[in-house]
């Protein structure tokens, strides 16, 4: 009896020590741990089950499929990353540091491609450049073979450069002009100062943006599948389609390893250089483009046309044709309703899941809370197809009741995208001093009361903004949706995929246009977030 009591006392003391002497309440910590476990479950399950795939299958795949997939995936990721980094950095400098006419409009326009899912962009450019596309019909030839490496490179670069553009743009604004002025006072001309001081100082931002692009390319399924270019994600998807879950899991493990390497590289670049923000810095002086103004404007117009105007025009054209043919029928609105339902549920669950995670991280920092947060990011960092594989395998074996329901799909979205809500809610919570909590306690509120009456109201705007981001991501999501949707439960994204693979563009364009329209709305939220961090 005594021994049990002592053991319990020791455990309590240890638990308290883990939390730095201020352990959170039992409900809160249990809920937090539960969320962390659920979020990591699909990924963990893939890794664990892959061990049962059999040595023979592992060897066959490693010998046969993996080398060629590694080459096709890495060459594409590398090429897209380099091109996107160059384009994004150039455009960011052009918009933030020169007297380019119409900067305010360009600044916004260059970010708009983020609202166009790459698979929608791929569909639009198949309409333009494809073997039976517009250019072929009008001119008899096409400058770009869409169903090739070049096609995948083109589409992914055009729709991912904004990652670099936004991160570098934010870094330029934060940098201000002081370092360049220091270089000027040390005898450098304006262009030399930009080259020798500003660009090196932007290197971490360029690297961070490039890593986002690389991670995206590793995770992309829709665009590469539409241009029939095989990477790990599409290979995994087609293994699942052939009911070869074990092989899909083996390939997933390799892709997880690849992603982890890229994430590790990010950690290294992040640590290497610390650029301290200058609170009093004044904005840097804009360069006069002079006689290059015409060229810069032409370049901006071309980028705007390729990344926004052409795809939107294609979608609008085919939607208009579709409208004439009755594409906006009851079925269409049912798909839209399905989408709203499942994405809305995912957004709601994500907001609920975000609160305890960010609260523990901010107010009870410890090994446990940072572990919970890391686990929660697992599904966000890894490709959606892996989350889907894990959930399917787990669902079939262990929770057949949930498998094949819309709830399962919403859960996949939560695992994939809840970290977006966590980032937003966390940023709001960071603005609320822990002293406010303490003040509320002194005024007589219990810890739960503080959470309900102080923390939740104060972080609500950030949490809602995060929920909106989750909502839009869920609307656009393709691979997990295709694999996990209940039979007959089509969403807008699914319709785009099904109809465009049959080249029925008048039925594919309306849902695609609706997706793009809904994605533009929270773009401002996204821009603000890039501006802040």
């Amino acid at each position: 009896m005594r021994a049990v009591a002592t053991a319990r006392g020791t455990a309590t003391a240890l638990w308290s020590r883990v939390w730095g002497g201020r352990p959170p309440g039992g409900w809160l910590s249990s809920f937090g741990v539960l969320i962390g476990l659920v979020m990591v479950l699909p990924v963990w399950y893939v890794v664990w089950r892959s061990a049962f795939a059999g040595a023979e299958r592992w060897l066959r795949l490693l010998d046969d499929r993996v080398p060629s997939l590694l080459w096709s995936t890495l060459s594409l990721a590398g090429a897209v990353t380099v091109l996107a980094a160059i384009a994004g950095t150039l455009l960011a400098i052009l918009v933030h540091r020169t007297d380019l006419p119409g900067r305010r409009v360009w600044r916004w326009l260059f970010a708009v491609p983020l609202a166009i899912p790459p698979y929608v962009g791929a569909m639009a450019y198949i309409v333009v450049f494809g073997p039976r596309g517009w250019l072929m019909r009008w001119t008899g030839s096409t400058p770009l073979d869409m169903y090739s490496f070049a096609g995948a490179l083109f589409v992914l670069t055009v729709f991912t450069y904004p990652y670099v553009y936004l991160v570098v743009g934010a870094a330029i604004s934060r940098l201000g002009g002081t370092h360049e002025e220091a270089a000027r006072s040390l005898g450098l001309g304006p262009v030399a100062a930009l080259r020798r001081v500003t660009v090196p100082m932007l290197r971490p931002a360029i690297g961070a943006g490039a890593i986002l692009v690389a991670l995206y390319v590793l995770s992309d399924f829709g665009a590469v599948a539409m241009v029939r270019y095989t990477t790990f994600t599409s290979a995994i998807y087609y293994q699942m389609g052939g009911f070869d879950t074990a092989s899909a899991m083996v390939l997933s493990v390799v892709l997880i390893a690849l992603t982890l390497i890229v994430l590790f590289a990010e950690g290294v670049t992040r640590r290497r250089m610390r650029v301290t923000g200058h609170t009093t810095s004044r904005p840097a002086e804009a360069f006069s483009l002079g006689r290059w103004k015409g060229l810069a404007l032409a370049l901006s117009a071309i980028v705007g046309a390729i990344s926004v105007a052409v795809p939107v025009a294609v979608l609008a054209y085919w939607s208009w044709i579709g409208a004439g043919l009755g594409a906006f029928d009851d079925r269409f609105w049912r798909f839209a309703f399905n989408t709203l339902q499942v994405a809305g549920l995912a957004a709601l669950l994500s907001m609920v899941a975000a609160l305890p995670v960010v609260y523990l991280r901010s107010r009870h920092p410890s090994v446990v809370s940072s572990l919970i947060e890391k686990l929660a990011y697992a599904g966000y960092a890894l490709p959606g197809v892996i989350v889907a594989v894990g959930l399917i395998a787990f669902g079939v074996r262990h929770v057949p009741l949930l498998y094949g329901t819309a709830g399962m799909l919403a859960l996949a979205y939560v695992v994939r995208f809840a970290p977006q809500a966590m980032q937003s809610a966390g940023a709001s919570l960071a603005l609320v001093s822990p002293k406010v909590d303490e003040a509320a306690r002194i005024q007589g509120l219990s810890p739960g009361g503080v959470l309900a009456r102080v923390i939740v109201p104060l972080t609500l705007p950030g949490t809602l903004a995060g929920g909106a981001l989750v909502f839009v991501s869920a609307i656009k999501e393709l691979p997990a949706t295709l694999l996990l949707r209940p039979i007959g439960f089509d969403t807008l994204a699914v319709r785009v995929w099904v109809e465009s693979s049959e080249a029925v563009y008048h039925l594919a364009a309306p849902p695609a246009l609706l997706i793009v329209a809904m994605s533009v709305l929270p773009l401002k939220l996204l821009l603000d977030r890039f501006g802040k961090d």
Partner: protein
Amino acid sequence: MADIELRDVTKIYPGASTPAVDSLSLSVDHGHIVTLLGPSGCGKTTTLRLVAGFERPDAGSVLIGGAVVAGPGAWVPPERRDIGMVFQEHALFPHLDVAGNVGFNLPKNDRSARVDEVLDLVGLTGFERRMPHEISGGQQQRVALARALARRPVVVLFDEPFASLDADLRVSMRAELRRILKAAGTTAVFVSHDQSDALAISDTIVVMRDGRIEQVGTPREVYQFPHTRFVADFVGRTNLFEGRIGTDGRSVETEIGSASCRHTHSLPPGTPVVVSVRADSLELDAEGPIVGRVKETTYTGRAIDAVVEVERADGTTRDVMVHAHPEQVVVCGDIVRFRVLPDFVAVIEE
């Protein structure tokens, strides 16, 4: 010879209704340390940036080393002005180590020798391979100074260099900076809003307000004999009394009695004036001619700041700030006597 000269320089920022710098003329002699002192928005930073070449004057001209660098038809960009600058928060290049920062854009042939030399001057020998984020705030400041001095500029400009340092460090850095500048024989212009920094480091203080110069003088002159209410108030706190020049011409008859004054601008007896009497110039003295009741006391360690209520001749009362020696015991409600010492009494030109 003046290393820096500003002639009737005016700067109006686009969209602003009043000039940031308003036909300002100033010259800084070789080897001098000058501080532009004033509250935020007084135009001191703009003046510094006009000298550096980061702003263009709308009127007037700027000369450095006798050559016009900005003015009608003349423009020399910052990189060719032969200036060094130490920025607020230092603006060290985070991607370069200490030697890389100090040797930035120095000619290759004597780069390493010059880097060694200036690092020795600022006492940072041995820190060459450290990155900026690996050294302390005071060390960053020294690197910024070394970098500014490395190219042997005619003049070094300092934009609020002490603002980012904590209180202890800034006191020691002031003395250190002055020693280094004097050792290097460099002309220096500081911008500061802190009077104690300005008093400690400068040969000459230029007090600015609304884009104009209020007073130019040595730290002693500016503190002891402020010319205007603004200077009297901004550079240390003071008591302002209305009164008339006394019959002897060397005292002022004020509302609380007569105060001897060495700084009357030779105004004729009877002229109505305002006189500034620093709290340091009021000494508690049991025999003193002025009587008052202590209203408030603040013990600062170096002194006791007391507010004393004094009765005027007409029966009304006013508050006077008095410094007492920290050893004395001053309690609220006490009736005290004090007298006016002549040292910190100055007639203000109205």
